């Protein structure tokens, strides 16, 4: 599944930061995952562990934070958190909406040890 692709992109991005900041160890990677992203946490962790074997990232913890789905009603303009399907405006009950956020997958931060300069 495509969790592997996401983790390859994650590792490439983290490695850029590792090289730029003289990192000696990566302790934790915090990943923000939208509930609409189709990315499964177990598969993300499995791919992360498999792809980090033997490198500087080996043993780092992958922390996954969930982001709620936020929709904006096209009828009355209200922004609301959508907790399931169908997505319905709590004010006017319209089913017309635009998704504002909730389908993203992004690296939020990494916890690192650096070499003293």
């Amino acid at each position: 599944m495509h969790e592997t692709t996401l983790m390859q992109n994650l590792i490439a991005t983290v490695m850029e930061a590792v090289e730029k900041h003289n990192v000696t160890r990566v302790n934790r990677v915090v990943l923000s995952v939208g509930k609409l992203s189709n990315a499964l946490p177990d598969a993300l962790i499995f791919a992360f562990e498999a792809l980090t074997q033997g490198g500087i990232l080996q043993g780092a913890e992958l922390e996954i934070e969930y982001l709620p789905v936020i929709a904006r009603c096209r009828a009355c303009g209200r922004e609301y958190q959508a907790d399931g399907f169908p997505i319905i405006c709590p004010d006017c009950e319209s089913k017309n909406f635009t998704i504002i956020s909730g389908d993203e997958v992004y690296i939020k931060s990494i916890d690192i040890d650096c070499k003293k300069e």
Partner: protein
Amino acid sequence: MARLDIKQDLKALNNAIAAENREKFASHNIYVINVMGSPGAGKTTFLENILPELSKHIQVVMIEGDLATRNDALRIEKTGVTALQINTNGGCHLDAKMIENQIQKLNLNSIDLIIIENVGNLVCPASFDLGEDMRMVIVSVAEGEDKPIKYPIAFLEANMVVITKTDLLPYLDVDINVMKKYIADINPEAAVFETTKKDGVYKADEVVEYILEQVRKKKGK
């Protein structure tokens, strides 16, 4: 220990290439449809049947996504339409880079419409923008009426939904109106069509009209 803020979107690379594709299509006035649906939903059969009629009016090229075979591209080429094949070698979806590689092989000046048949899968393809104008979801009545609510993400972002195999309704315990209601609950703006195969004849008339209208709208801009 230090914390480093990164805020890097992992889909950024795909989205950037999709945006480039979209720009390239726009500069050549090409309309692009990304066709998604479960394995066996009837995507290729639907396309085989609408391509001859579409080709009477406009220049169409197909891009076929498949795990391992050229079967669907060969079926499409029998209709006289050029079909490029992408094999994902196990990958569950097409991505924008694969499309970019294929469009380099085409003379874009002579094309009005590109139809991409994604890998048979109702989940993963929905997360990867290819640069398309229209997302089309194909769902057969045989899959069961609850599929739109069980796989909502594909339907959420669909502009057009085609319900196939309605000729099988007499043999199934499926209410097509319930299926349509579920689709409308999730995405009231999607244009919904039905296709059927009766006595060996495939019927999808209004679909062709609708697609031609979308292509002309983009050309007219």
